[in-house]
């Protein structure tokens, strides 16, 4: 390492052999980032909480109203409806990518030619610009000219209205979200599969277990921690999902696909009701934290019961 020898003579002025050598402080490295984080992450948060206590509309004077903005939330039918949409959208957008992502990971765990390249192709949906792919999905959803209804007709299924029907708009958007984010689950589970030792598989083979039994009783329990992480990340992203929904439906038809995030956009930047918007942002954040805590709790419960089950 030539760099080390390069570095030593330059620092001779620092030598004070009598003084006890202490490990240096690393604070100077962190301070610039700390300033940035304070400015763009901490400051907005503090300001948001303060604003949520004000009646603050663009163009009119601000008035301190205490918790009034928060008390308005449960009586706002659009907000309550948006919570429902968010929860159903999130549940589907966590479960479907988990299932498909795990299956894809099992396949990508095998060895085959051009695996790296194909994996690169497979993760393209999640790296592509969301607005650009939303645009193409909008064309594919088109009831008369869209390619999806053509594909349905090929297998003899009736044409759908997709995102233009309030009853099917959320499942249709989940289809896009699943297409987009299954690769992330695949990558995380693939990392889990790579960490599994070979021995359990060898002994299962000796015992004559079939493919399904191996997957159910060896692979699945061992990748559980990774599935949990993937589910957690997926949950956080699905709750916050904005680009796809906004670019394809703007929350419509009517308000059938208006999630909390889309409603927050309307309140803050269409109606310019910044105080109320800030209250929604705070509650929205707390909802995500609560969902994450719920997942952690479920995981503990599951671990506990499965341990009991194995002892019995």
């Amino acid at each position, binding site marked *: *390492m030539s760099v*080390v020898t390069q*570095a030593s003579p*330059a*620092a001779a002025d*620092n030598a004070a052999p009598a003084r006890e*050598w202490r*490990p*240096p402080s*690393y*604070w*100077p*490295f*962190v301070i*610039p*980032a*700390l*300033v*940035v*984080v304070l400015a*763009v*992450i901490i400051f*907005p*948060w503090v*300001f948001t909480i303060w*604003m949520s206590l004000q009646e603050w509309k663009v163009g009119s004077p601000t008035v301190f109203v205490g918790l009034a903005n928060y008390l308005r939330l449960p009586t706002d039918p659009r907000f309550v409806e948006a919570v429902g949409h968010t929860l159903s959208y999130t549940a589907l957008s966590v479960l479907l990518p988990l299932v498909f992502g795990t299956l894809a990971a099992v*396949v990508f765990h*095998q060895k085959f030619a051009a695996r790296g*390249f194909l994996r*690169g*192709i497979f*993760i*393209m*949906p999640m*790296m*592509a*610009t*969301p*607005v*650009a*792919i939303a645009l*193409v999905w909008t*064309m*594919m959803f088109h009831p*008369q*000219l869209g*390619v999806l209804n*053509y594909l349905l007709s090929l297998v003899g299924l009736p044409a759908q209205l997709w995102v233009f029907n309030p009853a099917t708009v959320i499942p249709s958007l989940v289809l896009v979200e699943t*297409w987009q984010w299954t690769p992330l689950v695949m*990558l995380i589970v*693939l990392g889990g599969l790579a960490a599994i030792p070979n021995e359990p598989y060898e002994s299962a083979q000796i015992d004559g277990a079939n493919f399904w039994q191996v997957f159910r009783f060896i692979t699945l329990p061992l990748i559980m921690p990774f599935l949990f992480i993937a589910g957690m990340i997926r949950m956080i992203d699905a709750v*916050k999902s*904005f680009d796809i929904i*906004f*670019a394809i439906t703007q929350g419509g038809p009517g308000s059938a696909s208006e999630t909390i*995030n889309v409603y927050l*956009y309307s309140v803050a930047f269409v109606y310019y009701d910044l105080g109320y918007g*800030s209250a929604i942002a705070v509650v*929205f*954040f707390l909802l995500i934290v609560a969902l994450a805590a719920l997942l952690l709790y479920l995981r503990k419960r599951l671990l506990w019961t499965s341990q009991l089950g194995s002892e019995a």
Partner: protein
Amino acid sequence: MNPRYILGRIGLWLSVFVIVSPAILFFLWMASLSLKFEIDNASYPPVFFPEHIAWKNYADVFASNRFLTYFSNSLIVTGCATGLAMLVGVPAGYGIARMAAHKSAIVILIARITPGLSYLIPLFLLFQWLGLLGTLVPQIIIHLVVTVPIVIWIMIGYFETTPLELEEAALIDGATRWQVFRHVALPIARPGLAVAFILAVIFSWNNFVFGIVLAGRETRTLPVAVYNMISFDQLSWGPLAAAALIVTAPVLLLTVMAQRQIVAGLTAGAVKGG
């Protein structure tokens, strides 16, 4: 080569085909839409390979709508936001890893959980007050919300795995902390720098939500410009698809070329901004 092995290989390739086809077919269809004249795009059943290829869709995009302005806006915003994030984030990742200050990662976690729109309300007011709206500065600053946590998070992970012995040796030889960082730690962490840089570029380039609020007519980035095209030319699919493909093509190329770094970064931190 027993038949069972061959059967297994066929099954494997079949599953690979099924798994990869939604991605491949989608992007091929996108390319097909962008290369067809309206008469082919509006025909039913859909035409996959057109008789006449409409290269003019691409020419139209570059000629109209100030596309080149928006392209350079995107380059400036992503370039500055990523550069600044590397500048402050890489040393920070180093400092946090060496101080073992794992609690500070909570801030990054909060940044990861917070919806992008929540940053927008206060920062929008701040930029308005500072009179910065109408320039690219607000977007560069707010993109730091995306890029800085990605860089810090990935660099913490990398510096934690690099060996300490070399750094200790250099310190005992009398090198300053800064020299140790610059000449010992940084060269070893070069793969990590690449991962952090690539992911920060991609997620900043793709960002849409900050632009729709902060960008004016002259300061739109490409995703916002494409979104605005939707409302104007609802029915000319060819140029729209061409524009969409141009916007996302750099990212797709980067994904296929640097898939190893991207996979490493995403599985290590699983970060995504906004």
